[in-house]
């Protein structure tokens, strides 16, 4: 139990050192510091993991020169970023150019406030936590636009337009796929949603949302949209290194660039955390009986988070990038209808609660797979996209 609560108790002890009037302020300050510290460390770890993982996927060792196994590479990167000259283009809109990275990072960091990291580690239990998450997330679009427009660079402008269009388009499937979860758990509070996934069948099969047909579909839709929301491959068009160089980040250097980079990673952590909370049982252990062991719950949470991060990296190492119009079509003509159909499936799942499990599963799977196949085929067949057979001369 101590393992589970030591962080909270430490906080209480520290807060109690202060006079009563200060305690709420000090308490939130401590929480904020811890969250920022943990995620800044995770940022360093994730950059290293990404480069190592990509390296291994590409059959090379990745960074291995700084420290043992390259472990201090993030430190070296940080020093480099901090000491680099900060270049602002002469024609740039100086104020907006300066504000953009801050506007990006601040809301993304706010999003961590509602995610329950462990059984006792909930920064704020908001009644409308999920709504809060999406609300602060949507501010990132403004930042992308500010960065792109203020740089007064054509590539940046193209990148900014791509970023806005992409984020707006993918916000819909993202939000709608979470609505399935809200319908089943009946709450917008993330703590309640995690609690709804407590327990399991025979203490072996957990009752995570991802282990239901609608949850699986919702998770996949959510994850795909989250890839796009956090500008990750295969939806990394706003950066589009091979086309528009760095997109809205082209004209940033030094620490401001690092802030953008950090914003992207924090966004990735936030959506991964949300996906974990909504679909993967939050801080619950993968096997329900493990919940009662000594392993603290936040270990499970961060384990799942890292797993999702690895999937992000894996996808980045494998897939090429979509084109702008294809991205839009994918969102509006494929993901959004699927997300809407998933809402129907949730309703179906809810109303067939008395049915035998196999029948429910079969019904829901059919209801999901049929539109998936049909929509996918429509998407591909429209332009006759398929592997081809070739002829040979004579």
């Amino acid at each position, binding site marked *: 139990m101590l393992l589970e609560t030591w962080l909270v108790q430490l906080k209480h002890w520290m807060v109690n050192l202060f006079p009563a009037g200060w305690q709420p302020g000090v308490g939130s300050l401590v929480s904020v510091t811890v969250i920022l510290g943990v995620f800044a460390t995770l940022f360093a770890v994730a950059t290293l993991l990404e480069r190592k993982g990509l390296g291994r996927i590409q059959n090379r060792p990745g960074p291995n020169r700084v420290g043992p196994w390259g472990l201090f590479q993030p430190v070296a990167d940080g020093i480099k970023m901090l000491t680099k000259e900060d270049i602002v283009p002469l024609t740039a809109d100086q104020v907006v150019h300066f504000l953009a990275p801050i506007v990006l990072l601040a809301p993304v960091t706010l999003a961590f406030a509602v995610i329950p990291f462990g059984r006792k580690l909930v920064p704020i239990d908001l009644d409308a936590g999920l709504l809060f998450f999406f*609300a602060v997330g949507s*501010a990132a679009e403004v930042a992308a636009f500010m960065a792109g427009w203020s740089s007064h660079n054509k590539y940046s402008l193209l990148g900014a337009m791509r970023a*806005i269009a992409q984020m707006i388009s993918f916000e819909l499937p993202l939000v709608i796929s979470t609505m399935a979860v809200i319908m089943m758990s009946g709450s917008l509070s993330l703590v309640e949603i995690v609690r709804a996934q407590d327990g399991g069948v025979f203490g072996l099969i957990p009752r995570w949302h991802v282990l239901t047909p609608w949850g699986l579909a919702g998770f996949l839709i959510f994850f795909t949209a989250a890839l796009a929301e956090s500008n990750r491959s295969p939806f990394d068009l706003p950066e589009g290194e091979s086309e528009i160089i760095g997109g809205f980040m082209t004209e940033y250097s030094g620490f401001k660039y690092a802030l953008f980079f950090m914003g992207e990673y924090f966004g990735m952590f936030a959506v991964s955390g949300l996906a974990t909370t909504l679909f993967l049982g939050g801080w619950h252990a993968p096997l329900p009986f493990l919940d009662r062991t000594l392993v603290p719950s936040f270990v499970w949470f961060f384990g799942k988070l890292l797993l999702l991060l690895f999937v992000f990296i894996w996808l980045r190492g494998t897939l090429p990038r979509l084109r702008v119009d294809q991205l839009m079509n994918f969102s509006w003509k494929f993901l959004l209808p699927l997300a809407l159909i998933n809402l129907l499936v949730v309703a179906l799942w809810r109303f067939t609660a008395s049915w035998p499990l196999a029948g429910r599963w079969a019904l829901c799977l059919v209801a999901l797979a049929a539109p998936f196949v049909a929509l996918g085929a429509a998407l591909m067949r*429209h332009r006759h996209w398929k592997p081809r057979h070739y002829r040979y001369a004579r």
Partner: protein
Amino acid sequence: MKSAFIVLVLVILTSAAAAVWLRKLVHAALCLTATFAGLAALYLQLGAEFVGFAQILIYVGAVAMLVIFAILLTRNAGMTPEVRWSKHSGIIGTAIGLLVLGCLLISLSASNGIRLIAANTPEPTINVQRMGEQLMTRCVLPLEVLGLLLTAAMIGAVILAMPEKHGEGLDSDGRKIDEL
């Protein structure tokens, strides 16, 4: 609490004034976004969580972006407009402003919120669940009508935005390039 309110109001008023006064349209749009965000903060300060978050989600996330898109995609909107000050425009602007203020005042005084505060009744606890229930029972008709209206607007927008099909955008086989 009061100091926070004053700071918020100052931020909102400053950014709103800047949105009106700034010459560059994009700057004005960004200030407008700041105003929206400030309003959301005001709602939150008043304890209206749901409205506050919805304000950010809809106004900062969507409406502001719409404004920016509209500015960027309109020809010559980018030029610094030649501002001609005339007495007429000032008078008309003030008149419209007063009219809006009057409407707001009338509707505010007609609502029962003021009376509740005057009567010093304890504020009713409003959580998201109750709001949802209200929307799905008492206010279901206005909700549906609104939804219909927005859908119609969206379809209209899509039709307006559809690419012209003749000539341009066709490849050698007569297939469209732009479409997926």
